[in-house]
Structure formats: structure tokens, C-alpha cells
């Protein structure tokens, strides 16, 4: 037991959890905390908007698998991180947010910069708690890390009144925590594993659908083993991208509203779906009753509430994906009979060739696909790509071949425009030796561009590629297709000048007019020690295809007519 102030205890607790970086912005209610951080040895990265601090923590968490920490003051500081928390919650990302709060005696009195952040974030956090006494800090921090990282990961928020930060108390850092309401189940039921193995062996046309759970549980290896043994193709959700290398012959790429044509088509032909760490989100399944209509479904998820939430499944397995996949594999290799599946494999290869994007660009304007393909060619396998949300995100998902897990970072569930850039900064902090590229649209980038200042001040060099159609592209696409080209409020009219914008923040900006220029620009940017913004004008009329219109099934997609 040692006597410390609440703020000292918090910083000590963070050190014990091996926290090296914190993303945040100081303010009135966290001044005691920032005073202790000043010479704590923990690196504080000053964000320029609290939302960005949360997204940075999120990007950090997604590439490292370690909780990302963000900090904000009470009131508006706290409410500004709400979008960041909701983003992390939807994609099961372990961030821990510490917010200042007004002094205990003022809580509930509508004090200056008071916001009920516990009430606000209850539906978008895995757990949140307000600390009432300084002595609770060591155990609360331990609990926060445990909850954020175990089971299905998710964001945790800890709210600390200012006078709790200054209060002195005897601190016990060795006391164990007890959570009688939280014991995540990770071991699969042996009977379910046996049944899954049987179904997989019997199936003629099985498909694995890898969700974000494969990435989170680090079970790429187990997934690939099983797929290769069974000659079972692997499709992914947006969040599952990178589960297996997308250059692998069994990789089908992404399924969904803007999924790969071959992946969507094969889903409707399969007779068994092995869905792993996948929550049957509407953007992936599209019309649910036409989503692999002839397939039996095995659903592996660590969150039992995901079983049967959206889709009816034939065989549920509540478990850690890594354990479940490994055990199914063990069951299967023991069996002597092996199904002949060369027809299915040939069918897969046929469709892949058939829908292979024919590159018949007439050269009039830069095609986003060509940029993304060229980007892949310029980057090492381990390079990290983040995206914004909208057309840029879908072009990246469709055409950027992800080769390793945790290298494709995107806001899948919440679809947060402005996520990609700060997430890239957070990713770069976690992996300083790896190139980090944000594939952006002009509309999204504008939402968080002020954190170019963070990039410059904190020396976090990344690359932003703006696929600039001078539109809110996805909105415009829907207006083009379904609203008679009435571009209501979706035209951005080439404002701002992104080259000058970048330069204003001390980053470098370059505008490229051809693929060759882009190739040179990206190679130069990769060698640079400051952030580069590459502005690439593309046609405002460019659509993301394939597309399954809202309310339709995966089989009813519009494909590229080129």
C-alpha cells in the first residue's frame, strides 16, 4: 500500500498495464492528471479534436491488438469522443477512454463543462464507470483493461471527477479484481465441434465467411489451415479483410453490397456456410432470405448474443474462433474420408477469371481502381492501409489486395467518415516502422483534416491519398442511380485546395494527374519523414460496382458493364 493522489495512481496503473502512448487533449477537469503525465515517461500525443484522439486510439488498438488509450476533459471534451467510442464499439475495438468530470459535489448541478458521459455512453461502451473514490483507481483500471481486451473486445470509458484526481488515498495495486457478472466463454462445446466437422466433411460446396472476429482472435493461420485442407474458399466481410492473403487461390475477397462479383455469386451457390466472427450485418448479407439460401449455416462467435440475432443458424458454436477452428481442424484431419471437391474448386477459379476486372481504361481519366492497384504494387506486404468511408472505402476494399491481418483498418459498422486519417496516425504510432496510408475521399478527409497538425507536431508521418471526385461520392452515386441525378447537397466543388491545405499544416501536398505521376508521388512519399497528401482528381461520375441495390439479394448485383 502506498499513499498517492488519484492522478498519480491512474498514471501508475497505466504504466503497470504497459501503456506507452496516450492520445488526448487536456482541459479543466483533467489538469491534475496532465500534471502527473508531464514527467511520467508516457508519451502523450496531442490531438486537435477529441474525436480524433479516440480514432487514433482505435487505429492503434486495431493494428497492435493492445488497448488504445484516449483522454479528454469533461463536458464537450467527453462528448466529442462519443463518435470515436461508437465507432470502436461497432467494430469491437478495445479502446479505453478516460474522461475528466466536474468535482463530486457539483455532479448533477449542471456545472460548467458538466456532461453525463456515463449516461451518454452506456449504449455504446462494453463497460463504463465513474470513479467515486481515489482508492478505487488501481482496481478500476485493471478491470477496464480486462474487459476491453477479453471476450468480444470493446470500448470502456472511465470517468474521473477532478477532486478524485487530487484526493490522496492508500493505493493497493496488487488487489485482485472480481467480476462475477463477466466470465467470457472461450472453449467450444466438443459436441458442436464434432457436428461442425461432420457438416464440413459432407458439404459439396462449402464457403467460409471470415468476419472481423478472425482478425481480432488472431486465427488467420487456423482459418487457412482448415480452408486448404477442405478446399473451401474463403470470403470475408469488410471487417474480415486480410483474414487470409487475398492473393491466395481460395480467397474470394469481400462479400456484400459492394462485394466482389465472384464472391457474391458463389455465396448463393454454396451448400454450407461456415461463418466465423461475423455478425450477419445487413451490408454483407444484403437481403437475408436470399443470402446463401441453399446453405446450412455454422456460426462461430465468442458473443452468444450474436447467435440468432440476425440470421437463423443451424449449428451455433459460442467460442473463441481460434480454439474452435483449431479443434474442428483436428477433428477433420483424423477422418480418413475426404470429399472430392475439385469441381467446386474449378467453379471458383472459373468465376474468378470470368469476373476478373478487365483493365480497359481508355486513359481519359484516372480510375480509382488503377490507383489502388498501383498502391499495392508500391507497398511492402506489411504496410497498413486505413480508409475513410464511402466510395473510397469500397474501392479500397474491392481492389486493394490485403496480404496480412491487421493491415486493413476501416470503420465498418458505424461507417464513420473522417475515421481513416486519425486511425492512420494511431496505427503509425503503434507501428512506426511500417508505412501507413489512408485511402480517403475529399468529403471524408475534410472531416478530420485538422489533425494534420498532430501529424506535424508529433512527427507521425503518414500518406493520405485523396480520391478526389469533388463530391460526397457515395451519396452522389445513390442520387445518380436512384434519385434521377438530383445531386442534393452532395457537390463539394473542388474546395479546398488540398495541396495548400497540407502545406499550411507543415505537411507536403502534391496533385497528380496520371497513374504514372501517382506512382512517382507515392514512392517519394514513402521516403519522406513528413506526411504527404496526394490529391488525385477522378471522375465525379465514377460508380462503385458491383452493387447490390438496397433490399435486394446478393445474386441481384449490378456489375461493371465495361
Amino acid at each position: 500500500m502506498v499513499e498517492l493522489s488519484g492522478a498519480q495512481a491512474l498514471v501508475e496503473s497505466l504504466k503497470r498495464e504497459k501503456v506507452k502512448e496516450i492520445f488526448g487533449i487536456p482541459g479543466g477537469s483533467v489538469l491534475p492528471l496532465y500534471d502527473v503525465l508531464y514527467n511520467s515517461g508516457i508519451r502523450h500525443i496531442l490531438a486537435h479534436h477529441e474525436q480524433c484522439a479516440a480514432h487514433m486510439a482505435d487505429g492503434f488498438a486495431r493494428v497492435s491488438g493492445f488497448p488504445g488509450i484516449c483522454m479528454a476533459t469533461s463536458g464537450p471534451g467527453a462528448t466529442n469522443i462519443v463518435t470515436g467510442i461508437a465507432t470502436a464499439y461497432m467494430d469491437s475495438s478495445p479502446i479505453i477512454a478516460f474522461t475528466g468530470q466536474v468535482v463530486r459535489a457539483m455532479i448533477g448541478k449542471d456545472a460548467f463543462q458538466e456532461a453525463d458521459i456515463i449516461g451518454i455512453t452506456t449504449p455504446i461502451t462494453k463497460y463504463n464507470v465513474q470513479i467515486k473514490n481515489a482508492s478505487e483507481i488501481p482496481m478500476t483500471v485493471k478491470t477496464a483493461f480486462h474487459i476491453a481486451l477479453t471476450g468480444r473486445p470493446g470500448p470502456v470509458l472511465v470517468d474521473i471527477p477532478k477532486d478524485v484526481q487530487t484526493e490522496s488515498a492508500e493505493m493497493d495495486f496488487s488487489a485482485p479484481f472480481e467480476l462475477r457478472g463477466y466470465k467470457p466463454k472461450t472453449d467450444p462445446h466438443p459436441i458442436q465441434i464434432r457436428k461442425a466437422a461432420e457438416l464440413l466433411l459432407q458439404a459439396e460446396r462449402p464457403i467460409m465467411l471470415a468476419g472481423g472476429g478472425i482478425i481480432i482472435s488472431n486465427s488467420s493461420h487456423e482459418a487457412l489451415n482448415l480452408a486448404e485442407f477442405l478446399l473451401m474458399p474463403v470470403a470475408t466481410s469488410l471487417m474480415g479483410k486480410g483474414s487470409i492473403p487475398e492473393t491466395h487461390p481460395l480467397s474470394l475477397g469481400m462479400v456484400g453490397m459492394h462485394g466482389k462479383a465472384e464472391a457474391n455469386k458463389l455465396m448463393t451457390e454454396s451448400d454450407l456456410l461456415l461463418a466465423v466472427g461475423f455478425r450477419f450485418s445487413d451490408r454483407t448479407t444484403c437481403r437475408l432470405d436470399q443470402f446463401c439460401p441453399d446453405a446450412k449455416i455454422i456460426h462461430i462467435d465468442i458473443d452468444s448474443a450474436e447467435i440468432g440475432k440476425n440470421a437463423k443458424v443451424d449449428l451455433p458454436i459460442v467460442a473463441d474462433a481460434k480454439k474452435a477452428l483449431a479443434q474442428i481442424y483436428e477433428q477433420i484431419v483424423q477422418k480418413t474420408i475426404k470429399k472430392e471437391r475439385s469441381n467446386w474448386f474449378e467453379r471458383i477459379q472459373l468465376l474468378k477469371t470470368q469476373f476478373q476486372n478487365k483493365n480497359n481504361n481508355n486513359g481519359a481519366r484516372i480510375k480509382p481502381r488503377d490507383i489502388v492497384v498501383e498502391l499495392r504494387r508500391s507497398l511492402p506486404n506489411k504496410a497498413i492501409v486505413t480508409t475513410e468511408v464511402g466510395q473510397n472505402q469500397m474501392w479500397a476494399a474491392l481492389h486493394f489486395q490485403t496480404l496480412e491481418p491487421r493491415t486493413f483498418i476501416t470503420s465498418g459498422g458505424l461507417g464513420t467518415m473522417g475515421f481513416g486519417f486519425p486511425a492512420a496516425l494511431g496505427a503509425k504510432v503503434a507501428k512506426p516502422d511500417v508505412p501507413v496510408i489512408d485511402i480517403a475521399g475529399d468529403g471524408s478527409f475534410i472531416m478530420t483534416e485538422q489533425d494534420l497538425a498532430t501529424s506535424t507536431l508529433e512527427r507521425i508521418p503518414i500518406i493520405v491519398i485523396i480520391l478526389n471526385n469533388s463530391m460526397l461520392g457515395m451519396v452522389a452515386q445513390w442520387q445518380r442511380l436512384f434519385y434521377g441525378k438530383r445531386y442534393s447537397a452532395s457537390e463539394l466543388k473542388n474546395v479546398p485546395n488540398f495541396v495548400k491545405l497540407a502545406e499550411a499544416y507543415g505537411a507536403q501536398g502534391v496533385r497528380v494527374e496520371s497513374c504514372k505521376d501517382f506512382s512517382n508521388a507515392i514512392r517519394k512519399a514513402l521516403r519522406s519523414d513528413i506526411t504527404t497528401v496526394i490529391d488525385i482528381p477522378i471522375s465525379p461520375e465514377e460508380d462503385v460496382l458491383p452493387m447490390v441495390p438496397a433490399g435486394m439479394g446478393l445474386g441481384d448485383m449490378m456489375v461493371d458493364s465495361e
Partner: protein
Amino acid sequence: MSTKQIYIIGVLVEHKPGVLYEVANMFRRRAFNIESLSVGVTEQKDLARITITVSGDQRTIEQVIKQLNKLINVVKVSILNPKNTVVREMALIKVHAIDAKARSDIIQYVNVFRGHIVDVSSNSLIVEVTGDSDKIDAFIELVTSFGIMEVARTGITALSRGVKVIKNNHESVKEAT
């Protein structure tokens, strides 16, 4: 399959501020409907018990249970089978009793329903009735003609019969096989 039914759910939670909000908020957020809810302390002072009645089909109820189990401060969730559960609700009903005739009629009804008169004024009575919800509904209907001034109902509380208890050993919902 999609037939709606009333389910009674017993929820053991950490007895801490804000937990009722968490539980109620989850129902709102997931668009589940609470028919009634009662909450109180238990034999263990750090645990509270929330008894919730929910109407829905079986699939909805499964989701309710799973989503409740996901809340960190929820320690244990059980569906109480109406066949072997003691279910009680209490109501206080303030009724107009304008004359001696009305007063004596009401007192007779109260006796039949094994209720109590808990307050008397010159032209009103407060009746306490305990039982299952149907019994209370029936009583209220019976005295409506006298003129009901106010009703306060506690919502259902329930315990399963015999030695079976909802203990605080957390157990996730059994996988459907």
C-alpha cells in the same frame, strides 16, 4: 413460432447506482418492451434483484436474455417458468366511497379478494390487493363503477417454487443443439 407470450425474467445485478439504467436502457436501445419491472435488494446486500415481465416470441426472449447477460453488472439471468413460480403483484387503489352503501359494498369485495383497507376518509378508501396480475385486474374492474381516484401497482415480482434459486454463479445461455 412467432406467438407472443408473457415471460417473467429474474435478473440478479450488482447493487450499484446506475445498474437499473443500464438494464432499462438496453431494453430501449434494442426495442424490447418492458411490461412491468420491479426492483429491490436481496438476501445478499451487494446484489439487487430485478423482476421484468416481457412480452415477445421465443426468439425475442432469447435475445433479451443474451443481451442482459452481456451487461457486465448483470450477474445472473433466469426465465421463470409460470407453472412453478410464485408470482405476486401488489396494488394500492383509492376508490370513491360516497355513502355507507358504497363503503360496505367495497369492503365486501375487498374481503372476497383478501385485500385490506389501509386508509379511510370521509368519502374515499384505499385498498391494498396482492396477487397475480389477473386478480388485481379483476378487482380493479369490479370497483371501477364506484369511481377509481388513483391506482399504484408495484409490477410483478416472482420466485420459483421449491429449492431452485437464482444464484450468482454466472452461466451463459445454453447453446441450442
